[in-house]
């Protein structure tokens, strides 16, 4: 069980993986709501611009977007450190996906709810936060869970920036030990982490017990 001695190295990698995962979620989930609203705007210019942004994010590989920021932007004098690059790329990419999920969730709420609120004289912000948002969140949890778990695995793309995430640590030791065991262990760690996250999301879904 030589490979278990490498556990501290893997946990360091996991720290980076989960750090990037958490920061991406903390920033992209709140950002996605305004983007979803702007995307549904009646102003065709802003709605169109938002659609263009979402199309670019969904239509090109995340790996390419990261390369563009890290290797491309310095050409015009904009330089970001490695981890910051990863955060920027992941946040703008995942915000686009979450925005589309939220937009579909908002659209699924019956117009009658807004009208009932209007008839009762409830202000739009109160209605949104007390009535519309909780229903939207419940509707989108399954789709968001998918993205949240995919995000854990997508973080392995940061190898291109030379960051030492969980998978990269596995690769380094698989090479140096000429063994598949580090990969097996890394796979097991990913599996456990994602299982825990999925269970957490399920719990949140069940907490909306109406």
């Amino acid at each position, binding site marked *: 069980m030589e490979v278990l001695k490498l556990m501290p190295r893997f946990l360091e990698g996991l720290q980076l993986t989960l750090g990037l995962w958490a920061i991406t979620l903390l920033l992209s989930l709140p950002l996605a709501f305004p983007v979803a609203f702007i995307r549904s705007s009646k102003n065709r210019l802003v709605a169109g611009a938002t659609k263009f942004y979402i199309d670019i994010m969904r239509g090109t590989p995340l790996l390419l977007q990261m390369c563009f920021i890290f290797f491309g932007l310095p050409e015009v004098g904009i330089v970001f450190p490695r981890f910051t690059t990863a955060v920027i790329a992941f946040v703008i990419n995942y915000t686009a996906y979450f925005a589309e999920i939220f937009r579909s969730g908002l659209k699924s709420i019956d117009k009658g709810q807004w*009208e009932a609120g209007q008839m*009762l*004289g*409830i202000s739009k912000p109160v209605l949104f936060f*007390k*009535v519309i948002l909780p229903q939207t969140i419940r509707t989108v949890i399954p789709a968001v869970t998918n993205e949240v778990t995919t995000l854990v695995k997508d973080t392995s793309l940061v190898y291109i920036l030379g960051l030492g995430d969980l998978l990269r640590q596995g690769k380094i030791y698989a090479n140096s030990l000429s063994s598949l065991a580090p990969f097996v262990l890394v796979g097991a760690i990913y599996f456990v982490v994602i299982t825990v996250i999925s269970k957490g999301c399920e719990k949140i879904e069940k907490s909306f017990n109406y």
Partner: protein
Amino acid sequence: MLKVTNLYKSFGERTVLNNISFELNKGEILCLRGKSGAGKTTLIRCICNLEKADKGTISINGIESLENDKPNKAYQNNVGMVSQGFDLFPNLNVMDNLTLAPVSRKLMTKEEAEKAAMALLESLGIGDKAKSYPSQLSGGEKQRVAVARACILSPSVLFFDEPTSALDLASTQEVANLIEDIAKRDIAVVIITHDEAFCSMLDAKEIVIVNGKIAE
């Protein structure tokens, strides 16, 4: 009290309301009858400011529905609606459905609103449902909650959109009794329906709408 004068509304080429005028006093019940597409729903949506009429005026107790071409808040307080689908807020329990408007609008404290809500629910025979969620209620119970939610704001006019569309005869009679009870509280009630038998159960005025016009 409720006064609708020379109301017109078109959607594109199609004229939906064509010179509608009528009046209604407090405690009176009005049945607006007509076939699907006759313009009944559009009429009450205009009266409730959910739709804007092209021409004509609407007022309650002399307060006009529009002020500078925008919905008039002072007017809006006078109208309540029980829509066809009831449109209860599914994520809130019955009590919160009732108290959200008066509390968030600072018309009542939370305690006052809960007391008023409980009194209303009890008078409608659903006092035991205060902690239930809409999905746990029957159709008739949902309707009563929607009535209570509208009544907690003490409207002058309460609108019902097709309150008996999916009910058997016995339940229809119950809804008729419910509406007569509401009218006794000095609320004017306007009911949209295509159900002639239901109208005959009520001591109500009747207006029949054909192609956007009041039939003689």
